């Protein structure tokens, strides 16, 4: 009992200052991926969609403004498992975003237009 | 008008009521209409008699002891002498009040018929006999009246002799009543022979001349003898057997009044007949009261039958009254006459209160039994919607008996507590500690009483009905006037506490010679109990304040209520898909924590049988039974009963039936008589 008290005094306040100050330990959190549209082609996109265990990725062909494909990414369904990053380490990186609360479900559905298919 | 005159009027009223009931109601061949009319007339007469008794009781409180009146009598037993004494004032007023309430209750409760007619006749005669006990001025009158009450009550309990457990309950009542009676006779005989008079006044005047040993013996005999009637532990076992099996108004009379006969007897010996004695007598009384109170309520918590539950609660309240009397005696022994008188007053106040709300609760138990068909709490539920008026009246009685402010139970228990808290004023550390222990026991009892009555009111009245009978209960045709009158009396005894204390302090001054009123009620509405500079409280202000605190915010809300839409949603039941009434608390599970904490007292036995060995119990029902060990019956009474039976068996050969042997007995006795006469 007294040792606990002494240890507490030595360590000081451990409470995070979030949201007033950024929290340094947040850097180590697993986060949803960010996609580099230039490096993802249709085949890779298909593979990523199959890989995702929680059905967060969907490829919609020809939905982009210039007729290109769009990778629809549902951030709400993403479990940050990292399989898409493992499969395409250059194209898919961790976004580092953990403040993901949304007031509408639609805010979490992101459209990532892929590069236009080369003729 | 002289108090005794009122009592004569009461006795006449009740006597006439008995006659009307008997003649009109049980005449052979009488039409149903005449029987009903006769019974109603009898009840009206009974109510008038009750009113007269209330008047007499109140006037004897206020105007002191009346003169002693002799009414003839045989040479052998002496004359019958009556006196309206101040000490009995509370008891007679209570008798009258209960009589009025029961008279209002009886017509709707009893079926018109010969059985009810005889019952009502016997009941009215019991009222007369009880009045005689309270107004008895000499020993013989007291004893004859006492025994009459016992025998008549035995008949009251036997209203339905062929029903289950009725006969055994009545037998327990009579057996232990007679045992107590023997001890009471012994106590009176000791005092009467030592004081050379049968008159209670004379005995009281000469008691200080009686040697202390005889006085103590008389008091101990009286405490035990009257303790049988009052229900002190371990002399109480007849109470939960006898009180539930009588009809509801009989139970109300037994618990509300007949038990008070025992309390009256103890008060008579402790405060009127005997001078202040040694401290150990008071401590013994105090201990008896404390043990009774705690054990009474602990056993009450394990009862499923409403009336058995109330019977054990009566035992608890007897304990509280005896605590007050015992503590008074202890203070008296240490020279604190003000506290001696004060605790007597508090005890008498509690007598009045308990008589009122216990009668109310028993009457309502009768209503519930007739409406829902059962007394078992686990088969009731939701009665507050089906019997709304009875529910409100029962709530008043429950709040009273649980000693919650602002009702009357709170006032009297608070006064007793305040008296007990003065224990340090005796000057002896040991006594102070013992009195504090008694106060702690009283505190435990009060807490458990609240627990018990939350259970006693909540399980039958609140929640959902647990059976179809309970769901079909209806208030049509149920009596409400009688219990309603008692509920009004509860409120009056609380709000009008200053008036009650005024009357009681006058009575106590007559009995003890101590003038409490200037100490107790310096202002008009504030009560200073026990001692100045200790505490103060006003029951009247408290009642007004509590009502205002509940009513005023409601009025404000109703007047300026915001226009928010309100949504009605079902009761939060934990999200259950289908909430069934059987998922509610049952009476036994609600009190299960006490069985765990006090298992040394209860020694519960548990039997668990499964139909199969499957641990999940999937293939068959599981039977679970738990029972509280009847400690007193098993370890105290059974050995005594067995000893008596052994003795009887040993003596039986004398009655062999052989004529020759009997002739031999006659010869031997005559021989002995000649020898003794010759010597």
């Amino acid at each position: 009992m007294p040792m606990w008290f002494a240890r507490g005094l030595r360590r000081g306040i451990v409470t995070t200052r979030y949201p007033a100050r950024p929290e340094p330990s947040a850097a180590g959190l697993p986060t949803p991926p960010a996609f580099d549209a230039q490096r993802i082609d249709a085949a890779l996109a298909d593979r990523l969609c199959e890989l995702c265990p929680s059905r967060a990725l969907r490829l919609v062909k020809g939905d982009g403004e210039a007729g290109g494909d769009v990778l629809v990414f549902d951030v709400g369904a993403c479990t940050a498992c990292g399989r898409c990053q493992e499969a395409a380490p250059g194209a898919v990186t961790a976004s580092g975003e953990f403040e993901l609360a949304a007031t509408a479900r639609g805010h979490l559905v992101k459209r990532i237009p892929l590069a236009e298919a080369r003729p | 008008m002289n108090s005794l005159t009122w009592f004569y009027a009461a006795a006449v009223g009740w006597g006439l009521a008995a006659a009307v009931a008997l003649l009109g109601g049980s005449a052979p061949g009488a039409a149903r209409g005449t029987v009903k009319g006769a019974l109603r007339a009898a009840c009206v007469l009974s109510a008038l008699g009750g009113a007269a008794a209330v008047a007499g009781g109140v006037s004897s409180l206020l105007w002191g002891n009346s003169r002693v009146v002799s009414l003839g009598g045989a040479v052998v037993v002496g004359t019958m002498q009556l006196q309206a004494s101040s000490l009995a004032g509370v008891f007679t007023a209570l008798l009258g009040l209960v009589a009025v309430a029961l008279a209002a209750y009886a017509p709707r409760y009893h079926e018109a018929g010969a059985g009810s007619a005889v019952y009502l006749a016997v009941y009215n005669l019991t009222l007369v006999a009880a009045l005689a006990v309270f107004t008895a001025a000499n020993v013989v009158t007291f004893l004859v009246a006492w025994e009459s009450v016992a025998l008549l009550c035995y008949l009251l309990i036997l209203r339905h002799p062929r029903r289950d457990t009725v006969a055994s309950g009545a037998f327990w009542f009579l057996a232990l009543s007679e045992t107590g009676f023997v001890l009471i006779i012994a106590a009176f005989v000791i005092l009467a022979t030592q004081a050379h008079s049968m008159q209670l006044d004379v005995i009281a005047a000469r008691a200080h001349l009686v040697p202390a040993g005889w006085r103590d013996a008389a008091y101990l005999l009286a405490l035990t003898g009257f303790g049988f009637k009052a229900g002190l532990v371990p002399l109480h076992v007849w109470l939960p057997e006898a009180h539930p099996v009588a009809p509801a108004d009989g139970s109300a009379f037994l618990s509300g009044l007949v038990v008070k006969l025992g309390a009256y007897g103890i008060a008579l010996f402790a405060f009127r007949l005997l001078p202040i004695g040694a401290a150990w007598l008071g401590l013994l009384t105090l201990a008896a009261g404390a043990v009774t109170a705690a054990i009474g309520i602990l056993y009450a918590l394990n009862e499923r039958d409403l009336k058995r539950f109330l019977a054990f609660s009566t035992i608890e309240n007897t304990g509280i009254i005896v605590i007050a009397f015992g503590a008074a005696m202890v203070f008296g022994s240490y020279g604190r006459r003000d506290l001696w008188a004060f605790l007597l007053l508090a005890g008498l106040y509690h007598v009045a209160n308990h008589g009122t709300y216990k009668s109310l609760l028993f009457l309502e138990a009768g209503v519930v039994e007739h409406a829902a068909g059962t007394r078992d709490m686990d088969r009731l539920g939701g009665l507050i919607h089906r019997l709304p008026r009875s529910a409100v009246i029962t709530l008043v009685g429950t709040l009273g008996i649980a000693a919650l402010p602002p009702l009357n139970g709170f006032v009297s228990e608070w006064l007793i507590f305040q008296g007990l808290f003065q224990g340090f004023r005796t000057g002896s550390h040991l006594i102070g500690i013992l009195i504090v222990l008694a106060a702690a026991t009283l505190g435990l009892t009060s807490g458990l009483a609240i627990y018990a009555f939350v259970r006693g009111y909540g399980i039958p009245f609140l929640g959902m009905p647990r059976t179809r009978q309970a769901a079909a209960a209806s208030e049509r045709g149920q009596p409400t006037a009688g219990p309603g009158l008692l509920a009004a009396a509860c409120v009056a005894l609380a709000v009008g506490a200053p008036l009650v204390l005024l009357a009681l302090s006058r009575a106590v001054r007559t009995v003890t010679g101590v003038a409490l009123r200037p100490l107790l009620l310096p202002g008009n509405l504030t009560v200073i109990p026990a001692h100045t500079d200790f505490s103060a409280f006003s029951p009247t202000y408290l009642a007004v304040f509590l009502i205002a605190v509940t009513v005023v915010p409601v009025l404000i809300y109703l007047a300026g209520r915001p226009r928010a839409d309100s949504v009605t949603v079902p009761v939060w039941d934990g999200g259950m898909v289908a909430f069934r009434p059987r998922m509610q608390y049952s009476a036994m599970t609600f009190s299960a924590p006490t069985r765990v904490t006090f298992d040394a007292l209860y020694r519960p036995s548990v039997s668990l049988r499964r139909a199969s060995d499957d641990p999940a119990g999937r293939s068959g029902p599981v039977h679970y039974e738990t029972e509280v060990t009847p400690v007193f019956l098993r370890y105290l009474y059974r050995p005594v009963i067995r000893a008596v039976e052994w003795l009887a068996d040993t003596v039986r050969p004398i009655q062999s039936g052989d004529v020759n042997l009997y002739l031999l007995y006659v010869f031997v006795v005559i021989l002995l008589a000649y020898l003794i006469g010759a010597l």
Partner: protein
Amino acid sequence: MSGNDMAASGGAGPATGPALGGRAGEAGQEQRVAAELRARVARQFGRSLHIRTLDTGSCAVCEQEIRLLAAPHYDLHRLGFFFTPAPRHADLLMVTGPMIRAFGVAARKTFDAMPGPKIVVATGACALGGVYPADAFTHGGVGEVLPVDVWIPGCPPSPLALLQGLLVAVDRLAEKVAGLTFIAGAQPGEVPE
């Protein structure tokens, strides 16, 4: 927010996604109403909020993260948030799990037992409709049964994410994810072609 006015609309605030061109006027109107509601809710709950958690069939990891909120490191009490088991005393319902069908009645009863105004926060990927599709056992997401106001993604959402979600629910922090694109190299808020 789930006040009585917005119950029918499922509690969603302004139109989904960033403002769409042609319906700007309507969206603006809705946004104003939503903003008023949010302001009212922030006034009511801004300083003290009682949270009731509801597990509709999750793997209990979200519950562990929620429980960590009361630990000294995150300490939600300093923000004025408290946990309460009684829906009658709760302002905010924090729902985890994919809303299995067996729990639908209980969830609805819990929501109904809460007095208005009340907020529903769906927490975790299961509750948001990911991981488990709707089938015979599950509704596939809390939004099928209850009107949800705030969605917190994550599997599980870390306590920091939960704190941010709660603060967004009571309008003490602005929502951030609407402006994110999850396109590597893009500036935040930049709408792709």
